């Protein structure tokens, strides 16, 4: 068991384990009027360390719900979520928050930057909330900003940034505290296609460089060609789609990226 009070998992630990994100018989339904719509109906699946997994499926199929359950901001009706061997579904809300803060990065579709914080402040927020000193965490954040090409916008408030810039900041925020799991919920869904390419490029590049495990919900079949594994959410279950991966295994991922995502 992982002590949530000392909840930072090392990448080393991750690399030595295989399926360290595991859903077991996960169920989730939503009340709609007087009936319950079952979005996830007994999902059991594992995700490997350091890999990029894409979740495909139409709107309302349960992709986002699955990500929310994975990071513990939503609770399942049944079943468990194991991260490494820790059932986060068994934790208290407080412990789950600490765990999330230290080990998971989240990229939202709608950027969701905090409007009262500057670019840099947004990025270091999770670490500051964890009580880290600003001077200790700033250099890494500035470095990240530099990588996404926004070094000169560190003191700008989000409302002065374009959508693409905001999402680049959001990616930095998701990675700044060096999480081993990054969850992304349609990160380019709210961007024009050209900007979407740049942002996706950055996200994949930064996560793969750092060896992060990335689970992404997406509508885009092109993006799935870059994934290590692809799952389709359908009928409340997850079905692995091997067709996309098989056809692309021999291709150079980095070279392919611009091509597949190009408008």
């Amino acid at each position, binding site marked *: 068991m992982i002590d949530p009070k000392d909840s930072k998992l090392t990448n080393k630990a991750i690399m030595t384990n295989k399926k360290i994100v595991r859903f077991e018989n996960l169920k989730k339904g939503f009340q709609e009027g007087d009936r319950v719509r079952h979005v996830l109906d007994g999902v059991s699946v594992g995700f490997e360390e350091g890999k990029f997994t894409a979740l495909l499926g139409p709107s309302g199929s349960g992709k986002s719900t699955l990500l929310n359950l994975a990071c513990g901001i939503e609770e399942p009706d049944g079943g468990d979520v194991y991260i490494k061997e820790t059932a986060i579904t068994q934790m208290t809300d407080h412990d789950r*928050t600490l765990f999330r803060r230290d080990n998971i990065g989240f990229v939202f579709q709608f950027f969701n930057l*905090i409007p009262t*914080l500057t670019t840099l402040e947004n990025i270091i*927020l*999770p670490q500051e909330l964890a009580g880290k000193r600003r001077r200790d965490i700033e250099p890494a954040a500035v470095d990240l900003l530099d990588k996404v090409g926004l070094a000169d916008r560190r003191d700008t408030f989000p409302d002065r940034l374009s959508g693409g810039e905001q999402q680049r900041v959001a990616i930095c925020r998701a990675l700044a505290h060096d999480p081993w799991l990054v969850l992304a919920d349609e990160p380019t869904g709210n961007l024009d296609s050209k900007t979407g390419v740049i942002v996706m490029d950055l996200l994949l590049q930064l996560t793969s460089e750092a060896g992060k495990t990335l689970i992404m919900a997406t509508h885009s079949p092109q993006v799935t060609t870059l994934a290590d594994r692809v799952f389709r959410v359908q009928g409340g279950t997850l079905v692995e789609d091997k067709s996309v991966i098989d056809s692309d295994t021999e291709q150079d991922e980095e070279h392919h990226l611009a091509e597949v995502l190009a408008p």
Partner: protein
Amino acid sequence: MDTQPSTSLFPILMTSMRRAYRRPFQYILFVLGVALGVAMMVSVDLANGSATKAFELSTDAITGRATHRLVSGPGGIDEELYVQLRRELGYTNSAPLVDGFVNIPELGDQPFRLLGVDPFAEPPFRSYFGNQEGTGRFDQGALATFLSEPNSLFVLGSLADESGIPLGGTITLDRAGELTTVTVAGLLDPQDESNQRALEGIVFADISTAQEILRMDGKLSTIDLIIEDEADFAAIEAILPTGVRLENTAASSNAIQQMTAAFELNLTALSLLALLVGMFLIYNTVTFSVVQRRPMFAILRCLGVTGGQLFQLILVEAVILSLVGSLIGLVLGVLLGRGLIGLITQTINSFYFVVNVRSVIVDPLSLVKGVTFGVAAALIASFFPALEAYRTTPGSGLRRSTLEGKVENLLPRLVIAWAILCAIGAGLLALPGRNLILAFAGLFAILIGFALVTPPVTVWLMRAAVRPMDGLFGAIGRMAPRDINRSLSRTSVAIAALMTAVSVIVGVSIMIGSFRGTVVEWLNQTLRADIYISPTSATANRVEGSLNPSVVDDLVTWDGVDGASTARVVQVFSPQFDREITLAGVNGDISRGSRPYAWLPSGWDHDDVWDALATGDGIIVSEPLVLREELRYPPEPIMLETNNGPKEFPVVAVMYDYSSDQGMIWMGSDTYQTEWDDMEISTVALFVDPGTDPDTMVDAMRTEFNGRQDLVINSNRSLRETSIEIFDQTFAITSALRLLATIVAFIGVLSALMSLQLERSRELGVLRATGMTLRQMWKLSFLETGLMGLVAGLLAIPTGFVLAWVLIYVINVRSFGWTLQMDLQPAYFLQALAVALVAALLAAIYPSFKLGQMIIASAIRSD
């Protein structure tokens, strides 16, 4: 021809109803804001109205159909005049009255008016003894008993029934501590409600019984007249002895009622203040409801709904909700009025006139006024938000940032508005004269000005707070002041509401504290005698009746008494001011030279003044008389109607006096006795030998006089304590109203925080998803509200000070004529900060609790 397409608001109103059903909290706060404001207004109105109505009813009941009356000085009218009137002039439209106040322990603790009447002379004037069917439970036999048996009384049937007193039973009349047992010879049961109410405070005796009980042998209080023929005036006036005057009944009761006008206006102004704070709350709620629905409004505009319809929608919503709020406010107001009536009656009885109020009279006009004010306040407060709705364009779907941008642009204008309103307020306050309404208008202008400057000051303070807050609390500390500025349209209204309420607390606290300090100091300087004796009285702060002469003799010659000062306190008529004034005929100063004077003739000192009084060369008047009657310094001689006709008395000093706002006159007792032919003594103050313990002497006196006359014997210390108690009771109502204003403001802050929480649920969801713990979220909430409370508290300090200054130096002087020393203590300001902080922090509890229940994923999903 251009035809206006028919439009219906109904479909959009349906959306409002659904929203109210799904998000009732905002609507409840709106209703509550109106309800509390209306409740305060209605309660004060009803309590004031009930006291006035009770006074009117009892006056009407006593006046009856009399058009005029003959009145005289404190000694009363010789009853021979009545005989002369009937026999010599043959004027049968006249009725004698003996009138005074008594306590009747068996009928409760309110004072009663004892009326001595002649039942045979009564019919043209009053019909209580008409013995028509249903007027009462008595027969001719009872009337005969009433006339022939001494100490027989007629009382209101329902009152006797309530107290379990049967016909033929006995009750005790306490007149200035002298007790008389009387028999209930008849019960009056008037059929109409107003007579029923009027008689709740009156008991009837025959003339001779009343004369005996009220110690008015051979004297009448008034002779009532019905004069229809102008010629009769001359005939009657021709036989009037000096000192007796003919008075118009309507004019005199009007003059008495005018006494409380300033007091009542002050209460009304305080209640309006609560409505003003309530308006902030309404504005806040409506603005929020508009901002939140803006995307929907934009869609509706796309679908063909006009801007005008959206404007109407907001106003229709305001009318519906304010009607609901007003109706609840009426119910609360009546309930609250029942609580206030006791406090108001106490003050009126202490300072103005005796009135017996048993219940709240629900005047429909007060209720209509309450609803009208409630709806009007809601419409005014909703106007600007409605205008915002009107301006929604189909494409815009404006978001909060646009609104906040507009607020930001408004800031310089708000500072200008503050300056202009303060200038207008100062101008209104500086206008010469004693107009109270203008003074209150000035005060309100300044208050609104300070409320308007709240947003710019908040922005400035919050910008300054970012760095220190960052240092203290890190990221959360940095976010709190920025969040406040970012949601300025919402936070500044809440801060302004809280600031206004807290400034009222500060202002009124300073005023009451200064007033209390001034009175305590005045009592210390004035009350230098060791023991004070007066007869028991129907009401606090009022001397009725007189001391038994044998009691006075025993008191002044008591072993160990070093000196005595006696006073006869009466009401005398001043033709110059066309009203009655309290006059004290005194033979010495109870302050022994230590009291301060507002004015002395140049070169005079205390001894010169009191020598002049003793030799009959002058009188002293109180400061309120000078201010009330707008006399100049040095005051001109004052004309009073004596038993020897009108006479002018030169003024030799003006004294501070806080016992009456109607003004008072002190005169040497010899002069008083000569001019009014009245040897009675109302109060005695004793100086005891050094080395004698006054408290022991008080105990000995109480034992000695027990059974002879019920006396109020106070040592110096206990008299001061009693005086301060009366003072505190008088201000109890102010404290109650102050508290209510705070509750309204508290709800304002709560409403604002709820609004913010709802609006920011997505952002807060993101924070939680990013790793903010619940405890950190509570911390953020409390830091934000704490800052809001702090800003409100800080702003309330200068505002409260200005309010206190205006209350003390303008409103108070114009209302009551009292000069007060402003007493500024740090405690008042610390209290302001504490109240604002605590109110704000308390208001954060519920929204924070709701935040704790937030499902993060849903919050992030919500738009």
